[in-house]
């Protein structure tokens, strides 16, 4: 008998329970990464072998590729354009998903993030406008002259403050009135959308200053060319990557992270241990609100306009990303890395459907099925590993 096998068969602790070391050596994130790779390969094959005729009378070009560059006049390995689109899609909703992940780990849910994006977009943009457009006064001006041509830091601070207030309302409602998070954030979702429409009587707010437009339109890494990250307008992706890394570290290595997991897995135990559960919940929801505000700032800066309907369904996409990434809706389980991978899967699927010219209707149908499938798969995996 090999020493390794002997060790595993030996009973440990009480009740003669033997312990299988292999069970733990396989973090769930690996499964999600494998899923991402499999899905990418599937789309690559569909593109390569021109399987579009299966569902489309108008087959796309033979010899296409999902991931790689096939145009001879461009000297890159990857299909830069497609990857940029995937990464940009991931970035904006992914930033929201970072906050939603923390909320779900805490055992809650946040339905308000999409509406917070809408309200924050409108308010922020009205502090980022230029006074003069092509020699005429700005036709979409919301506030007076005092709010025109302000440095970009003003709308950023205003935007983050909006997110903070909205998140704080969520947090205080949930922590101190003890109503279910679903109801509290549903209320904020509806009200915040109302704020977005009321702010400018439903009119779009446009024409930001150059400084503000450069936030998302610029490229912080500039000429720094390491493959993927060398295109103009990469800032949202950089911000997303930085925030994902930051909150990964926060969830793993700080008291904030441990207590979030603790509250999500056993709230009564957390309370008995002397953790101030209400205060911690308020903090988590506030951070989630501020992350939604960051997304709002980037999306308005990118689109150069804000509309009351911005961010509709973002909350559900963000929740879907987290769920695909292995975050358990029961709370206590999941990780930021998982959500980042989930966001990538989400975006690859949408982009992949477009690449094989599947109609948008089918895309949505399949998207829904994938979300449900991810939860079913997660539960199956858990019930298998738990006992």
């Amino acid at each position, binding site marked *: 008998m090999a020493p390794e096998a002997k060790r595993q068969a030996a009973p*440990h*602790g*009480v*009740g*003669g*329970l033997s*312990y299988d*070391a292999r*069970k*733990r050596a396989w973090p769930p994130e690996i499964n999600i990464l494998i899923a991402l790779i499999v899905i990418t390969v599937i789309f690559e094959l569909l593109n390569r072998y021109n399987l579009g005729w299966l569902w489309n009378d108008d087959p796309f070009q033979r010899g296409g590729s999902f991931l790689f560059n096939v145009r001879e006049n461009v000297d890159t390995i990857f299909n830069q354009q497609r990857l940029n689109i995937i990464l940009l899609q991931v970035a904006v909703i992914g930033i929201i998903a970072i906050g939603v992940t923390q909320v779900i780990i805490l055992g809650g849910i946040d339905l308000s993030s999409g509406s917070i994006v809408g309200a924050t977009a409108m308010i922020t943009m009205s502090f980022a406008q230029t006074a003069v457009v092509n020699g005429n006064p700005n036709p979409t001006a919301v506030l007076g002259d005092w709010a025109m041509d302000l440095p970009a830091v003003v709308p950023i601070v205003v935007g983050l403050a909006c997110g903070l207030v909205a998140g704080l309302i969520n947090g205080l409602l949930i922590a101190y009135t003890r109503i279910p998070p679903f109801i509290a954030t549903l209320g904020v979702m509806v009200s915040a959308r109302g704020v977005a429409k009321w702010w400018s009587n439903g009119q779009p707010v446009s024409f930001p200053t150059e400084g503000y437009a450069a936030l998302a339109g610029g490229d912080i890494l500039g000429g720094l060319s390491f493959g993927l990250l060398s295109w103009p307008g990469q800032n949202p992706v950089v911000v997303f990557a930085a925030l994902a890394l930051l909150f990964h570290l*926060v969830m793993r*290595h*700080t*008291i*904030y992270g*441990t*207590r979030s*997991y*603790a509250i*999500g*897995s*056993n709230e*009564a*135990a*957390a309370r*008995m*241990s*002397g*953790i101030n559960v209400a205060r*911690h919940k308020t*903090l988590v929801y506030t951070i989630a609100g501020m992350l939604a505000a960051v997304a709002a700032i980037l999306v308005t800066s990118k689109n150069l306009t804000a509309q009351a309907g911005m961010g509709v369904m973002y909350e559900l996409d963000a929740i879907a990303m987290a769920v695909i990434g292995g975050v358990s809706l029961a709370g*206590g*389980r999941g990780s930021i890395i998982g959500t980042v991978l989930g966001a990538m899967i989400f975006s690859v699927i949408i982009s992949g459907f477009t690449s094989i010219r599947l109609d948008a209707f089918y895309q949505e149908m399949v998207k829904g099925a994938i979300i449900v499938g991810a939860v079913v798969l997660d539960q199956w995996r858990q019930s298998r*590993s*738990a006992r």
Partner: protein
Amino acid sequence: MSDVILQTIGLTKHYGGVHALTDANFTLHRGEHVAIMGDNGAGKSTFVRQITGVEQPTAGQILFDGQEMAFSGPLDAREKGIEAVFQTLALADDLDVPSNLFLGRELYRLRLGPFSILDRRAMRAATLAALQKTGVKIPDLSNTIRNMSGGQRQCVAIARTAAFKSKMVIMDEPTAALGVQETAQVENIIRTLKAAGEPVILISHNMRQVFDLVDRIVVFRRGRIVANLAKAATTGEDVVAYITGAKTGAEYEGAA
């Protein structure tokens, strides 16, 4: 230093009109193991909730280590040195062993408010020491509680009390949900605590266990203490008589 570690004088708790605990006078000496027995609803758990700071008593005094206490919450009681293992396991299933032991009072390397950075190495070392002290064997500390057996979970919960400089340990039915072998393991831990001179209050329905482990038995009935029996001077039948109300201790006549 007085010989008494915990004393309650006239401890009373009312939930609205329900008198869950009335006029409880209880004394625990240093190094002593005392069992609290009684039927369901007799006030045992209510009593424990008062002395662990989970609830604040309606009336009465709690003297701990010679000083009068008014606990603001469970963490306050813990900091003063009262550790409790509750009937419903106070463990977070998705955290590993050290994180559970230090839940609510994590060690940190860098203090940044709620974002203080955890000192995992120190917590792990302290966990190993606590497990050794209680004689608990856990194969892998970084395993989550979810993946452990009921006995291992209970052992972690008990080891939790040893990880800190506790002056007294309270166990609320620690073996209620355990199998034979696991119960034996937990009882061994309690004996280890006895040898270490740690005072323990054990709440249990298991007569065999009580007579095996403790020095003294206190019986609760209908929210009152009705008997205070040295183990050597009593029998199981006697204790049952007190629990069911067939008998009431001489000094408690007229109480219930």
